[in-house]
């Protein structure tokens, strides 16, 4: 018989499928699968929550609580109407329901009763039946009471069921509230970190301002007597001229080349890491660096003050990273154009700014996007 050997020169389905799967693998590359992303998101959430002393598995724990099953009302059948109680006496066994004929039949039965008593004693049987009728009546009453009781219990049960259902709805709301709380707490934790950075930057700026003020004051104080002395020196040639000190030039490349960490010690380790990993951030503010690196004191002719050589704390920009491997601790807000403009408009006193002083830039971090945000989406 013929083999299934249809082979086209150019088409081999198995090979094509292998190529397709290879292409998919290549396209996927370093991307994460959805499962990995979920795992990473969980890790990040825990990192955000742990510092706030919140149980990171709270939501999960709450989710794992088995919801109680619905409380179904007891389905009981409506009892059939109770049989009518039958009065039983000694004459009942002789009664006939055939109208006038029945009276005759009853009479005959009465007459034949002695004959019947030759075979057995009907009185005892009648007594037993009378007793049974009484028992039946009592049972009927008990049954009726029990039926009423079941009805009452069922009513109570239905009422409890409604309460229970309401409670279940409340539980769902509680869960939602709890979940929202945890989300908000995560967001606040990240927000607080950013605010901490902001406060540090403002503090640094304030410190710089104060030092600059002191430097200006000292310059002004030293300028008045110096000018007087300068006039006097011009009058007396015997006194040697004071040599003007040339300001050092420290280009940016030189600073980097020396391996000196430009970040002041007051910065947190997180900021240092961010600074190291974000070299482009420094280049994003070239105007300020350029102003610092290449001062032109000759234009002003003002002598450098010792106070102005104090190293000022510089606040580095924190650029948010899109990498999924980074924790929220590493997420930093981008530089907002508004604040950059404010920095550029900052009245730098270039004549007195030493090379080691860098302008302070403050940024208001945008609202960080946390994992819980993405989860909510």
């Amino acid at each position, binding site marked *: *018989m013929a083999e299934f050997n*249809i082979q086209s020169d150019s*088409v081999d389905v198995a090979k094509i499928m292998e190529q397709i799967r290879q292409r998919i693998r290549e396209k996927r590359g370093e991307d994460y699968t959805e499962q990995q992303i979920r795992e990473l998101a969980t890790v990040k959430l825990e990192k955000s929550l742990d510092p706030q002393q919140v149980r990171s598995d709270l939501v999960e724990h709450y989710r794992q609580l088995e919801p109680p099953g619905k409380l179904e009302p007891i389905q009981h059948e409506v009892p059939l109407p109770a049989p009518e109680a039958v009065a039983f006496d000694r004459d009942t066994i002789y009664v006939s329901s055939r109208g006038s004929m029945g009276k005759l039949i009853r009479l005959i039965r009465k007459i034949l009763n002695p004959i019947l008593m030759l075979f057995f004693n009907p009185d005892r049987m009648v007594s037993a039946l009378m007793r049974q009728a009484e028992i039946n009546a009592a049972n009927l009453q008990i049954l009726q009471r029990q039926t009423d009781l079941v009805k009452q219990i069922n009513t109570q049960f239905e009422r409890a069921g409604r309460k229970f259902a309401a409670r279940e709805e409340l539980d769902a709301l509680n869960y939602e509230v709890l979940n929202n709380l945890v989300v908000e707490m995560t967001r606040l934790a990240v927000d607080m970190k950013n605010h901490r950075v902001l406060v540090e930057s403002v503090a640094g700026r304030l410190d710089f301002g104060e030092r600059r003020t002191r430097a200006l004051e000292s310059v002004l104080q030293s300028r008045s007597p110096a000018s007087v002395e300068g006039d006097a020196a011009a009058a007396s040639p015997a006194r040697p001229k004071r040599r003007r000190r040339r300001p050092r030039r420290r280009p940016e490349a030189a600073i980097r080349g020396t391996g000196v960490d430009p970040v002041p010690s007051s910065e947190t380790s997180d900021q240092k890491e961010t600074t190291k990993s974000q070299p482009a951030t420094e280049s994003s503010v070239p105007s300020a660096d350029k102003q610092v690196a290449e001062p032109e004191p000759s234009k002003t002719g003002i002598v450098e003050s010792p106070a102005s050589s104090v190293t000022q704390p510089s606040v580095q920009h924190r650029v948010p990273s899109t990498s999924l491997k980074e924790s929220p601790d590493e997420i930093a807000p981008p530089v907002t154009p508004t604040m950059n403009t404010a920095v550029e408009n900052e009245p730098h006193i270039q004549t007195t700014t030493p090379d080691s002083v860098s302008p302070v830039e403050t940024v208001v971090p945008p609202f960080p996007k946390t994992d819980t945000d993405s989860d909510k989406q």
Partner: protein
Amino acid sequence: MRLAVVVQRYGADLNGGAELHARYVAEHLARHAEIEVLTTCATDYITWRNELPDGLDRVHGIPVRRFPVSRERDADDFARRSTQVFDEPHSIAAELAWLRSEGPTSPRLISYLRQHGDEYDYCIFFSYRYYHAYHGIRATGQRAVLVPTAERDPALGLRIFGSSFRGVRAVMYNSFEERALINAVSNNGNVPGVVVGIGSEVPLNPEPQRFRQTTGIDGPVLIYVGRIDENKGCGELFHYFQRYARLSPQLTLVLIGNPVMSIPAHPQIQHLGYVSDQEKFDAMAAADLLVMPSYYESLSMVTLEAWALGRPVMVNGRCDVLCGQCIRSNAGLYYENYEEFAETLQIIMANANLRSALGSNGRTYFDMHYTWPVIEQKYLDMFERLTLEDKARQTEPLPNWIHRHRTTLPPGRQEVDRLPGGPTTLVSYDGGTEPRADNS
């Protein structure tokens, strides 16, 4: 030669897979033998309600003898018994009760076969899983030829059907994967069997332009033909296509067939409903690609028709039969997840040469194995072989009452799960070994 075709339903307007298969086989074998169809009065496979008169009838010139169904299917009872035999340890008695519950229960049909079975040379039973096939095979064991139309579903794991597969004179399989499944579950390797499948009558000159004019679709077309059902994988198809449609706004998914699930309202999905054969073939000829998302198929006639029209196909790779057909024919690609769906679809739609080559391979494959002369000859060859063998096969008797009621059988689903899977790649008609390909 006198043949009886025994099938659960029969009619010109019935489009169920096995029923249509039976009608096509009966009509084509009528050119070579005297055919009589034995079936029930039911037309609905859910209820098996008697809707056609019993007695003799004639459909497309073929005599049809109908027998009433003694009881309709009780859906609750059937569901309960299905759970019992598919998911729980059970007994042979439970399987027999499940079979009665499934129907179509027609004792008169079985009685007729018992009394008049000898009047036919062979009785060709379709669909192993129904009442008529199980009891009919037991009534006409020596003359029974089975067309199982088996899929990888839990019913295949029921013990009672093992005797059916072993007790017939021959088995006409639809695919190599089906044969491998049945061999594995029933150990019927000594029963003569051949992979036949079914032919299709495809018009030589379909008019794709007529379809485009009627529907106004100009761009590339992906087409699905068949019942629009969750069980056919249509839900997954809709999900995948809607994702892919954002990448390819010109592509249109055309659906042909009766829906039993909701179709998403999407501008790139067009449902044409049930159409005539001519319209169907026009649409298929106009399409760039046929998609077959079904997880379970014993043989997809639509796929074969697409190949007959020279159109490539894209199938669900989790269906062993479809995947194996694509590999054997080199005429279609397959997918197992969205990424593969998107990538495969993109490659096929972007590469006209690939489409042409796949379609050409498909047409060759169809011409070689699935044209009606080939199918008819395979049946005739098998009958001739059986005549020469003249080997009476004894039907296995049922165990006694006590053994029938012992709960010793494993769940049917468990039995099927342990069967080997994957497409069969290296195959031949001579019944040699068939190593299975690793589909991973």
